[in-house]
């Protein structure tokens, strides 16, 4: 089957995918808007006011996403300007959201300075976490812009979605259920269900809209974990300022510091990052499968295990009480490892296995491309391209010989060759979802890059 025929076969599926994404986005915005207004009128509690005044932030994040995604298809000059504009929107949104939280939730007690200090304390740790996540995909690192968009949606949109839901759930159950373990279990169900749905929807939108950058399980894990890390960032600030306000003046700093350590150091890759990574893993596997049923099973399983993991932490935390003695620090670490470790281990196993399968497939496709003699990949290049370390050595060799410009040219060449191999793999699996002629376009791009890099 020709490439054009393959492209035409899949072309009609794209609009429906975008329509689903658009419908989800509109529903999300509608739910946020209606619930925020209703909550504000009926309940008039602080979290509801936060949701109401957070709507402009939602608009700014949506605008930033739109401008940022449109920039992908632009020429370099327009792309740069559009990305700067998107970054500015995102920056304003984040700052405004922080301000909203600060002013309407915590300012009266913790004060704006405390909120800024808490946020500043979380930036380096979350930034480090996102950097590590992006490096996990050794074959094709995800674009920074998408990783940041994922984190921003986790921090701003997902947290906005759960504020109203959890407030309503809490109000109802507190007045209906028996206080104690039953109510605790109900609250844990609420957190697991609502927070994982809110975070997972961001990964679903990336899966639907950015299919070119969502190739498989590794990408799914990276985007999912980025969303979770964004959520964890905002939740950390919220808990730190809240507990500071409660325990000030004598123990406020200690309380906020303990929260920072628990969420931004010990729990950075556990908890939210792990749970949403599991949702991303399910979506990533579904990306590579054919047939509705297997897709449904993997996506559903990913979501269920994320909800179950979150639920088990919230519901059964009291089974591992922390003493007031010298072993408290040890117990805190042990509790995290025992309760959240198995879920994180599952993500690591899926990641390692996914990377192995992906690397094998890319090597196979690179060998096949070289054997076809179309000039995009040569036989001698295959061993270099199939090894992460050999690719890195090639880039550093270019850096030594031709400076940073040469390094960048070789890096772009390698990236284009791996993208071509990935495209071939999707075609082999009959899950191709790109525009017709993409492989030929990539070959032409490789030819131009090869000429520029002069590494032939």
């Amino acid at each position, binding site marked *: 089957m020709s490439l054009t025929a393959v492209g035409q076969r899949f072309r009609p599926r794209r609009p429906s995918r975008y329509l689903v994404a658009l419908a989800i986005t509109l529903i999300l915005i509608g739910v946020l808007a209606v619930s925020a207004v209703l909550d504000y009128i009926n309940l008039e509690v602080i979290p509801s006011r936060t949701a109401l005044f957070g709507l402009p932030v939602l608009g700014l994040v949506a605008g930033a996403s739109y401008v940022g995604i449109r920039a992908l298809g632009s020429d370099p000059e327009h792309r740069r300007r559009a990305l700067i504009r998107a970054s500015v929107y995102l920056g304003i949104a984040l700052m405004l959201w922080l301000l909203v939280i600060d002013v309407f939730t915590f300012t*009266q*007690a913790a004060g704006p300075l405390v909120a800024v200090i808490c946020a500043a304390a979380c930036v380096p740790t979350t930034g480090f976490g996102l950097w590590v996540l992006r490096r996990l995909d050794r074959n094709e690192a995800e674009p920074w812009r998408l990783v940041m968009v994922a984190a921003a949606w986790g921090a701003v949109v997902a947290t906005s979605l759960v504020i109203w839901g959890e407030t309503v759930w809490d109000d109802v159950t*507190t*007045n209906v*259920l*028996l*206080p*104690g*373990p*039953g*109510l*605790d*279990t*109900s*609250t*844990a*169900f609420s957190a697991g269900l609502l927070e994982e749905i809110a975070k997972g929807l961001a990964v679903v939108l990336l899966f639907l809209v950015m299919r070119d950058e969502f190739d498989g*399980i590794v990408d799914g894990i990276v985007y999912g974990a980025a969303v979770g890390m964004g959520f964890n960032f905002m939740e950390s600030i919220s808990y730190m300022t809240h507990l500071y*306000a*409660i325990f000030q003046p*004598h123990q406020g700093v200690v309380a906020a510091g303990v929260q920072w350590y628990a969420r931004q150091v010990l729990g950075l890759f556990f908890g939210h990052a792990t749970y949403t990574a*599991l949702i991303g*893993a*399910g979506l990533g*596997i579904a990306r*590579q*499968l054919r*047939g509705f*049923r*297997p897709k449904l*099973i*993997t996506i*559903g*399983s*990913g979501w*269920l*295990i994320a*909800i*179950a*993991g979150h*639920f*088990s932490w919230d*519901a059964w935390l009291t089974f591992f009480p922390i003493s*007031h003695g010298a072993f408290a620090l040890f117990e805190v670490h042990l509790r995290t490892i025992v309760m959240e470790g198995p879920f994180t281990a*599952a993500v690591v*196993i*899926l990641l390692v*296995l*996914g990377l192995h*399968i992906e690397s*094998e*497939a890319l090597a196979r496709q690179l060998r096949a491309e070289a054997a076809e003699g179309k000039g995009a990949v040569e036989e001698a290049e295959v061993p270099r391209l199939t090894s992460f370390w050999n690719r890195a050595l090639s880039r550093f060799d270019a850096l030594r010989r031709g400076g940073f410009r040469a390094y960048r040219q070789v890096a772009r060449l390698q990236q284009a060759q791996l993208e071509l191999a990935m495209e071939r793999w999707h075609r082999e699996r009959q899950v191709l979802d790109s525009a017709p002629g993409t492989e030929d376009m990539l070959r032409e791009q490789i030819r131009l890059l090869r000429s520029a890099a002069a590494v032939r």
Partner: protein
Amino acid sequence: LVPANDELRPLYRIMRGLGMVAIAILLLGLVEFLHFEPFEPKTGATAEILGIFAYDPESGTKSGPDASHFNRDQVFAAEVNWSALPPGMVVGARWYNSFQQEVGGTGPKQADDLTGQPLIPIHVPEGLERNLPGHYTFVVERYARGQPVEVIARRLIKVERTP
């Protein structure tokens, strides 16, 4: 569903296994919820909470009017009219702070055994010098088989952050 020779089959099977583990965890959670929140026929009994008052732990007496807001340094207590309940009914009362920690209570005992103890004060959690701020819930519960099964009175009050 996924052919045996498919390279993604191991991933698919792990994911499916995780889905089954998830269902088991959530079912266990549901069982736990049902254990502590059993389907018990309601008696229709209602306990009478006479009010929430400032409380002096030294003398064990209340003071001031019924209130719904207190400051962090104030000790307060709920007053319950136990004699309004059927004498043989096993009941208890508990205070919970905003972290759902139990911070006071009495029982479970038969209602007529509690008539001499109408005031149920809160106590400051271990390691703290004064009350935590936030919403506090006071509940009077009916007991059966050694566990609470029905809330027969409930009252919410607020402890302000600033005195």
